[in-house]
């Protein structure tokens, strides 16, 4: 029980994975850093436009053969990949911790989620079945066939470097499409590791490609005429731009964007179980996830409010902040220094707007001897109102905004007044309250006594309002529909 072994012993030089080959980029190299230790983990390229185009070309060329590969054979590749992911589970998890900063428990949780995507998409022979009806008129039958479309891509965020691309690409390739992943430039190593395992699993060249890079690579992918659809997870500002570009090119899009989530606490909640769930929601992944709680809305009288807030503040103040490879750590650093600076600015703004800073996470208390460039402790504001920038903008850091509501109705109205609609939760032991919340709340993912309402691989990952652009969602049956075209056939044999 101590500090776990580092998974990366020497500085890696990352390459693109195109057409089944590891290809050195001609693009400019930059350092991928461990946010906790400040050590350089890898040199990664900002791939050129030509290199991105080569990846799309490889995927396009691989498509005709791959779509003719039987669904059963395609699923066997995914089965083999699943086995390899399990064999390398711990190493993959540790890579996430060193390149992102999250705790080892969080990284293992992320790896498990990724593996689950692989498992679910392995069921493609059943999932991809169409439907039919005999005798729509005498002697005439009609049926629906689901067919793949071609090349898709994922423009991935930094906050879940392993899992997020796997919300999409296993479903895409299982249905017979080919794929290009562009990981976040901040933490691209996990996707390179996955590509190594895909290679070993026996996916044919060009079916899965990984190109490393930044905004230029992303735009090249989205605008490429051979790209049939785009998946993106990131901010609303960039997401809207990508959605517009995709729509202009007649492409499909799943665009999952920013959030400012509300967690409602009713006075009848199970306090003992609620507080750890809140800690996980607000401060897990150092607040850097679209499902994180941002506002804690407490319903009830002064006595309940004061006791509950004291317990929350006390628990947050005692959280162990440190290096994610230290098993004691409950919250790791921010992923990079400028993200920390942004949160510091958010805190300043909150104070200026009149919120009361009850717990000041700027006062650092970090376990171990690590540079403080990316670390923050949890912050908690009270007296927060819906119009403050603390609420209207996504924070993406370890900050909790506490608000009060006189009853459930007021709490729901406050949450629904927010422009985002990603994941809101209620904590209650009253079924009627829970149902009312589920019925009225305007959010894509609903939690009832769950702090992080993260859908499993066999359900779609929801999102509404300014948190989602598109029609079909990632994961589950939605993903199958997104990555396939439905062809309707009618036949008669006179």
């Amino acid at each position, binding site marked *: 029980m101590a500090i776990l072994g580092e998974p990366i012993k020497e500085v890696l030089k990352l390459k693109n994975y195109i057409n089944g080959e590891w290809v050195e980029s001609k693009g400019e190299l930059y350092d991928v850093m461990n946010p906790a230790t400040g050590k350089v983990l890898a040199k990664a390229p900002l791939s050129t436009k030509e290199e991105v185009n080569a990846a799309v070309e490889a995927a396009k060329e691989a498509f005709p053969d791959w779509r003719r590969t039987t669904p059963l054979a395609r699923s066997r590749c995914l089965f083999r990949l699943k086995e390899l992911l399990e064999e390398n589970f711990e190493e993959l998890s540790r890579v996430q911790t060193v390149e992102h900063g999250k705790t080892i428990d969080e990284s293992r949780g992320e790896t498990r989620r990724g593996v689950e995507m692989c498992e679910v998409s392995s069921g493609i022979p059943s999932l991809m079945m169409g439907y039919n009806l005999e005798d729509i008129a005498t002697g005439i039958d009609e049926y629906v066939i689901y067919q793949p479309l071609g090349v898709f891509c994922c423009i991935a965020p930094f906050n879940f470097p392993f899992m997020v691309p796997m919300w999409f690409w296993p479903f895409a390739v299982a249905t017979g499409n080919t794929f290009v992943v562009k990981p976040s430039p901040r933490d691209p190593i996990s996707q390179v590791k996955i590509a190594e395992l895909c290679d070993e699993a026996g996916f044919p060249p060009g079916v899965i490609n990984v190109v490393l890079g930044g905004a230029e690579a992303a735009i090249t992918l989205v605008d490429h005429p051979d790209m049939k659809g785009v998946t993106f997870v990131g901010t609303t500002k960039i997401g809207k731009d990508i959605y517009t570009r995709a729509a202009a090119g007649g492409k499909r899009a799943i665009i999952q964007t920013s959030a400012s989530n509300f967690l409602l606490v009713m006075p009848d909640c199970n306090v003992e179980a609620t507080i*750890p769930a809140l800690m996980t929601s607000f401060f897990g992944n150092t607040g850097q996830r679209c499902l994180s709680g941002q506002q804690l809305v407490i319903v009830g009288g002064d006595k309940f409010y004061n006791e509950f807030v004291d317990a929350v503040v006390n628990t947050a103040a005692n959280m162990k902040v440190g290096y994610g490879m230290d098993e004691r750590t409950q919250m790791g650093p921010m992923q990079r220094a400028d993200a920390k600076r942004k949160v510091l600015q958010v805190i300043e703004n909150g104070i200026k707007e009149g919120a009361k800073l009850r717990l000041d996470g700027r006062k650092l208390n970090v376990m171990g001897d690590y540079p403080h460039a990316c670390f923050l402790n949890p912050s908690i504001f009270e007296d927060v109102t819906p119009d403050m920038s603390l609420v209207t903008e996504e924070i993406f850091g370890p900050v909790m905004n506490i608000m009060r509501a006189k009853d459930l109705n007021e709490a729901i109205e406050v949450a629904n007044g927010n422009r985002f609609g990603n994941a809101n939760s209620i904590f209650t032991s009253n079924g009627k309250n829970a149902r009312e919340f589920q019925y009225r709340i305007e959010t894509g993912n609903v939690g009832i006594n769950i702090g992080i309402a993260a859908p499993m691989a066999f359900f779609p990952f929801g999102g509404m309002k300014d948190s989602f652009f598109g029609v079909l969602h990632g994961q589950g049956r939605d993903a199958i529909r997104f990555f396939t075209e439905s062809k309707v056939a009618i036949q008669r044999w006179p």
Partner: protein
Amino acid sequence: MKINTASQAISLGTNLEDKSGDFYRALAQRYPQSKELFLSLAQENSKNVTKVKRAYYGVISDALEGCFSFSGLNTDDYSIETDLPEGTGYSDALRMAVVIEEKIIKFYLDGAEKSKALMADVPRAFLLVAKKRRERIPKLESLLEEG
């Protein structure tokens, strides 16, 4: 040291299983009259590790409260003495084994209680292992009576 995270709890459980496994292997060497039982207990320890790790790695999720599931446990409450001094008699060694078992059972029961609302299948695996280990005590005690 206080335990907060699931990873810490799993590591502590693994460590207890490994240490007590080494202890039983040492007993098997030193007291051949009960070699078979001691070796089977050591072997069972390895299975316990697999069982607990399988549960943990199978259900750990970024959505669950992995970093808060075991708050309140303290490693000091479960430290076990496994050094077998030269000349330790058979009965004393068996008494040590019973104490070790009781400590480890307590760890699994406390861990299951702490994490029952938060960690899905992990507390169930803990309870299963505690049950298995509880079955050892009468066996060890009967050896004590015979000895």
